[in-house]
């Protein structure tokens, strides 16, 4: 009798417990990680966008457990605000100039853009790919290409990649990993090594009430482990020295 009475309660308790224990970790990741991260862990819930947009969402209380950004700026800002643990560098990347396979504008090098009159897809200044692009152009003394050509400013690198692959833009500055994702539809033109800005990805465990900090820390640990490094390398990322 007592057991019979307890059974529905036990069932209710189990029902309530299931969503809590099975609720997926929420990972906010830079757009350029959109292929690699699900390959490492399919169970997590992902939200991909420009790192600066994700930073802003976390600052406004978005339910992120882990933040993985395409530059140190955003994660370091959240750390300084006390919104995440100390950031960790987990990957590197390089920029390339992406052109559609047909290459109707006949672009053969970044210096081809000096002439002007082309349609360029470029990251907005606040998003990491936009900041890296401006840094690269400044080093090459080619900042003028941003005024001599028709520019569409994009909020994340996935949009730039799509625009070039679909032929809506004559060229765009993306990471080499994004170029791999559209191989067959677009071609990558290498950019001078000496002018490449250092592209470093940093991630941190988000500090907020109700966050799955343990799950986020375990994910981040996995990402910097041999397993995570293998997956990142497979998707074309560079790896920082083991630290």
């Amino acid at each position, binding site marked *: 009798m007592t057991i019979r009475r307890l059974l529905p309660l036990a069932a209710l308790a189990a029902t309530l417990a299931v969503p809590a224990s099975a609720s997926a970790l929420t990972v906010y990741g830079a757009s350029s990680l959109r292929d690699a991260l699900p390959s490492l862990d399919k169970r997590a819930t992902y939200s991909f966008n420009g790192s600066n947009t994700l930073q802003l969402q976390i600052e406004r209380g978005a339910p992120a457990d882990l933040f993985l950004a395409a530059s140190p700026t955003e994660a370091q800002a959240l750390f300084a605000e006390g919104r995440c643990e100390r950031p960790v560098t987990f990957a*590197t*990347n*390089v920029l*390339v100039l992406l*052109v559609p396979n047909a*290459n109707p504008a006949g672009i053969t090098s970044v*210096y081809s853009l000096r002439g002007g009159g082309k349609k360029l897809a470029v990251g907005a200044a606040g998003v990491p790919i936009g900041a890296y692009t401006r*840094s690269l*152009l*400044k*080093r*090459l*003394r*080619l*900042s*003028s290409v941003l005024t001599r050509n028709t520019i569409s400013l994009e909020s994340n690198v996935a949009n730039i990649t799509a625009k070039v692959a679909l032929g809506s833009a004559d060229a765009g500055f993306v990471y*080499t*990993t994004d*170029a*791999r994702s559209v*191989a067959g539809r677009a*071609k*990558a*033109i*290498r*950019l*001078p*090594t*000496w*002018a*490449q*800005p*250092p*592209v470093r990805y940093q991630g941190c465990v988000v500090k907020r009430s109700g966050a799955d900090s343990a799950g986020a820390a375990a994910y981040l640990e996995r990402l910097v482990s041999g397993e995570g490094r293998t997956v990142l*390398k497979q998707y*074309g*990322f*560079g*790896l*920082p*020295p083991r630290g």
Partner: protein
Amino acid sequence: MPHGAAGAARGGDRAARDRREDTSAARSLSRRAVLAAGGAALLASASAAPTLAAAPKPAPAGDDAGFLAFLAAAEKVSADLYHRALALGGAFDAGERRRLSLVAAGKREAIRRVTGPLGADAPQAGDFGTAFPAAATRTRAGVLALAEKLERLTCGVELNGVADAADPATRLLLGRLLAADSQALSTVRVLAGKPAATGLLAPVDLEAAGDALDAYLTAPTAPAQEDTP
């Protein structure tokens, strides 16, 4: 000799002696004046030295940073090459090694001077590695030929920067680096048995210079770039 004549002769001697003394005094005066002027000039240059050392801080404007970023990479490549040269057993005698050490030290100083104004955008240790063709670093002749090529490239970009940089203090810095690197160029030429003078150097634009420099650069932690179509 009659007295009168002797007296006249003595008088003439005295006059001549007086003239010599006057001339000598004048010469000594002029020497003193020259020495004094030299001393004043030395003093002036000594007092000017702190002014030079305290030259305005470069604040790269527009795309000026491009010259400094290129030089940060180029001077690192040269510094690494001189270290390889110094490690070549028996290729250089003690005097030559001293001269190469001085040039290498100058390269390290140049890196410090160009990375400062770049601030957070400066290349960090580990961003670049260097890779030289084996043949170029195996022999004295190979090292010196590559060193001359790199110094010419560096001087050419500095010359370009002196003409084109927008910020006056950045132009001044590039001019000083050009003076130091021209000296390095002369040193490697002399070590190679060539005349020190090279004739008038030509400016080199960053596109050509970057292509040449990239042949010796690696990015150890960065992924490989996709192939050029």
